[in-house]
């Protein structure tokens, strides 16, 4: 369970998040939506314990993320930040193996190699495992980074705009995989993802957390919380949620 109690974050004296309280349980996909500058990335970093709030408490599975040591945090939450780029000449396998760092601290064991192989298989990267990252397409590279976060084997996976540089096919490919992996069953994980494409959120999210100007607008099950009125108010433009071919899509009203 992720629980935020009256969390406020400031940067250089300016409020970024104000009095945000949230609580959601494990499983499924939670989409973080809101206009630019709403505080979505800051919220993810705060949940991951990488940004310290000036007030409030952040608990993940009972661990106080503000006070926890870096390696403790990394065994609870995996965070994939925006625009990941690596200058080192790594192969896909090297990168995914770094996802096991919180477990092996630089000395991989057999179990780590098994988990890396599993993550490569899960994200269909077996054939690319020995290719260098700089020889991959944007979509393949992003998949490799998601696999790295996945290999971290945390209950919670926080993804900050992982689809921003992807074409619709690659975006759908990643979301389909995440959707399947967050369904109930053995090894089920929980994903919190920042999304700008509201139709992707409408299609894949189980829960919605909406932020505006650093404040929580709404949070809850997607079918209840994601309404045309809420989205219109959130983004300051008229939007509607329509049912097209059996799926919800967000369209200009």
């Amino acid at each position, binding site marked *: 369970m992720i629980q935020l109690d009256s969390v406020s974050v400031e940067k250089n004296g300016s409020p970024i998040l104000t009095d945000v309280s949230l609580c959601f349980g494990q499983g499924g996909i939670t989409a973080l939506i809101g206009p630019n500058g709403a505080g979505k990335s800051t919220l993810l970093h705060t949940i991951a314990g990488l940004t310290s709030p000036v007030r409030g408490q952040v608990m993940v599975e009972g661990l106080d993320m503000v006070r926890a040591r*870096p390696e*403790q945090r990394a065994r609870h939450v995996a965070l994939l930040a*925006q625009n990941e780029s690596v*200058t080192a000449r*790594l192969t896909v396998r090297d990168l995914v193996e770094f996802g096991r*760092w919180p477990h092996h601290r*630089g000395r991989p064991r057999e179990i780590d190699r098994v988990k890396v192989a599993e993550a490569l298989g899960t994200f269909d990267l077996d054939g690319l495992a020995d290719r260098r990252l700089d020889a991959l397409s944007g979509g393949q590279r992003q998949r490799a980074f998601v696999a790295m976060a996945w290999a971290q084997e945390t209950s919670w996976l926080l993804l900050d705009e992982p689809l921003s540089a992807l074409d619709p096919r690659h975006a759908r490919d990643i979301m389909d995989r995440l959707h399947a992996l967050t369904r109930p069953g053995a090894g089920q994980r929980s994903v919190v993802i920042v999304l700008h494409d509201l139709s992707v959120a409408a299609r894949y999210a189980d829960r919605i957390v909406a932020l505006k100007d650093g404040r929580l607008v709404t949070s809850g099950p997607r079918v209840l919380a994601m309404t045309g009125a809420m989205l219109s108010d959130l983004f300051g433009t008229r939007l509607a949620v329509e049912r097209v071919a059996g799926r919800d899509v967000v369209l200009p009203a």
Partner: protein
Amino acid sequence: MADRRLLILGLVLAAVSALFLLWNLRAPVGFILGLRLTKLAALCAVGTAIGTATVLFQTIAANRLLTPGIVGFDALFVFIQTMLVLGLGGLGYAALPSLAQFGVETLTLVAAAMALFGVLLRRGADDILRMILTGVILGVLLRGLAGLAQRLLDPSEFAIVQQASFATFGAVDRTQLAIAGPILILSFAAALRLARLLDLAALGRATALPLGLDFDRVVFVTLGLVALLVAVSTALVGPITFLGLLAASLAHAILPTWRHDRLLPGAALIGATILVSGQFVFERLLGLQSTLTVIVEFLGGLLFLLLVLRRPRP
């Protein structure tokens, strides 16, 4: 593959060291061998220190074109020499106990570097570019101040500053070497202990932090080691700006790995090999003195230009 190449690099260094020691060895053998051993130890220590420091610095700065010299170490060293000569006069400078001079130079360089790193990175290690640019500007300022102060010197004092401003292995002080050697060995060992953390740090702050790395701490410790390695080696023989770039670039080319437990010894061996082989060629074969650093700077400068021009555009 990297292990085998490291072994070959070690054998090459052993071979050129043997040549340096034994080539044209004449009586009194013990005396000459002693002199050559001192010089060899200094060459190896400085080559190791500069090679190691450059790999560390490039990893933290996430840039393969940078050397620690770019943040003004060399300029500060020349500034200290100029101020000492200006303050004490030529005779006073010459009469300075070598150990005291070595201590003052080392401590000043380390203190200045740590002040620069500490002040500019106090809000987190995410502004390394600003730290480097400030170092570059400070370097320009110090060079300007040193140039201004040098105009106040008489020609003989100016010649002393000029001589001290270039690295020379001709007259290495054994006492200084006895102090610098263990410091450099311990710093190198500490760098090797950091190797696994540096592998992760090389992924960048945004990736390494969520993986549980105390990134800011690793950056501070690493920059502290860089400061110590560069300060001690500079105080020992003088500044060599581009040796590190040569050693680190060759290490990355010869050892195609991202693992720092291979790259650091590789750069150390290459740095030492460049200095020992260069000194052997110039001193033993060509009979020249104090030309080595000029050639190293020339080749390093050419490599720098080549690397800049070869860099793919984003």
